[in-house]
């Protein structure tokens, strides 16, 4: 194989040799050209959200150039941010996401610690099982979970369906497996000498975890936290199935069901709501991009 390529490309190499830097420059120019094209493709919807959110409904229905704002107004923002209903959605989403992050961390950090360091009977199987659980999608489980919640509600008399707090139990099924998986990776990469030193100094398992593992694996912890938050914030199927009353809805479901169901599609407000709903993950991403990307890639590379 290699001899073949040498023979074939042998003569042409001399010709190319001198123009190497010119080739590079052209490759760079083409790269930028295509990157701009793809950036336009990737950024059109969010930018269009912003454009529409600054328009009044009169301007939207006037069918002028949709890509430009002729009379920018913040009335959509003012209206949504003073509407009790929208603030309720935002509050529900925030409380659910934040509590789910805490529950996720409380479950996955100790479990990852045990799976990464204390090899016990079945630990390897359990680690694989955790990874497999991560591959089970929400669209497979929403129907049995819906029925289960109904059955539990009938037996115990505790209202579970149509209550936002039921999401606190359901969301961890989406966040815990992946967070445990990446934390196992981060914990396993900590040198054994560190916890051996801690053991020699007389630290208990708990102290080793809180004083050594958590501080050293902090980047992984931040990545896992970001993941858990964005997944809980974006989740659409479970709240759509489990909650229906307006005061129990979280943001994605609230915007799609209440703002869209009106007689007139108020696109200005829908886009404003969508943009405000996308803001928390975008802000987190803007400030903690490196952790975000680390978490994203860790899932597959830290096998």
């Amino acid at each position: 194989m290699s001899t073949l390529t040498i023979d074939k490309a042998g003569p042409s190499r001399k010709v190319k040799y001198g123009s190497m830097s010119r080739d590079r420059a052209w490759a760079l120019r083409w790269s930028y050209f295509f990157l701009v094209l793809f950036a336009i493709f990737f950024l059109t919807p969010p930018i269009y959200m912003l454009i529409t959110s600054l328009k009044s409904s009169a301007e939207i229905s006037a069918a002028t150039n949709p890509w430009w704002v002729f009379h920018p107004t913040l009335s959509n923002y003012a209206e949504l941010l003073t509407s009790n209903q929208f603030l309720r959605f935002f509050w529900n989403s925030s409380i659910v996401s934040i509590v789910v992050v805490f529950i996720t961390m409380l479950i996955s950090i100790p479990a990852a610690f045990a799976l990464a360091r204390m090899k016990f009977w079945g630990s390897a199987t359990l680690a694989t099982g955790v990874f497999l659980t991560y591959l089970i999608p929400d669209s497979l489980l929403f129907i049995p979970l819906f029925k289960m919640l109904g059955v539990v509600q009938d037996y115990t008399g505790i209202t579970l369906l149509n209550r936002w707090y039921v999401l606190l139990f359901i969301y961890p099924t989406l966040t815990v497996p992946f967070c445990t998986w990446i934390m196992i990776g981060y914990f396993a990469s900590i040198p054994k000498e560190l916890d051996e030193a801690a053991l020699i100094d007389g630290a208990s398992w708990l102290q080793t975890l809180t004083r050594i593992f958590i501080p050293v694996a902090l980047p992984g912890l931040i990545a896992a936290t970001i993941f858990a938050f964005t997944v809980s914030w974006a989740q659409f199927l479970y709240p759509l199935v489990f909650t229906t009353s307006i005061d129990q809805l979280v943001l994605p479901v609230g915007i799609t069901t209440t703002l869209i169901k009106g007689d007139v599609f108020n696109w200005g407000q829908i886009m404003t709501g969508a943009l405000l709903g996308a803001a928390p993950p975008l802000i987190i991403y803007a400030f903690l991009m490196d952790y975000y990307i680390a978490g994203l890639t860790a899932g597959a590379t830290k096998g």
Partner: protein
Amino acid sequence: MADVVVDRTRVTRATGARKGTSLRNALGRKSTVAFFLTLPLILLIAMLVLYPAFYSLYLATLNKAMTKFVGLSNFTFLFKRETFWMVVQQSCIFAITAVIFKALIGFIVAHFVHNIPGKKQRKWRGMLLVPWVIPPAMSTLAWLWLFDPSYSAFNYTLSFFGVGPIPWLGDTFWARFSVILVNVWYGAPFFLIMYLAALKSVPDQLYEAAAIDGANWWQRIWYVTLPMMRNIIAITTLFSLIVTFANFDIVRILTSGGPLDTTHLFATWAFQVGIQSSDIPLGACVSLFMVPILAVAAIFILRDVSKRGNEA
């Protein structure tokens, strides 16, 4: 396996020397601690993932009122319905086409980002990952507005090129196209990031050696880049196949399965049948049809993941 033995003796020696407790006590303590640390995880998975998964198998064998056992008649009922076969077909078209385009765009854009100077890469990467960060339910609303039948901004732009108004969501072909387009838009950045990370891990010496051997750019990609990235390409593609196959948000918001149920996927159809028409057994039955494909993909992923583990 060697780690286990070494670790255990070390622990017992350390604690034993310090406190003078017996060996058995220390051993017992360690596995007890480990058990309690993993107990919440095990309970969560068992109660809210494994149990519902098997429960849906049971549900699928009941009649609509869930009062009596009907065996496999829900399944045979589905096999006779034309809509079901359309859903199977559309799910496969949707998942395969979307994953291929996501992988291609991700691969190409990753190369462009890799080509430009290091300092600017961060900025571009940050911009190109935005679709993945926005919650899909929110960004799909923006697409819905871009595809609006009377105010579509795309049709406005296309009208300047003399291309007539396209019924983005009204016509079967275009609705399928739009749904795939939005999914590609949302998922391609994920591939981009994975491939970019993989590209950076290919040693420069290999490209230098290839250049000395006179390889052109195509040969460099085919004989150096692709073999080095094979594992990550496989894992990313299989993972994305699972996620795309089980997709719900995009189709639900964009078309709700219409026109005439032609864009339904398993997830959205199961939702319509099981929750909206409250035929829970039939809905469970529909979603169970995702299992074979998910299982096959999962087996391959697991094989690749464990292979990576052995290499490292």
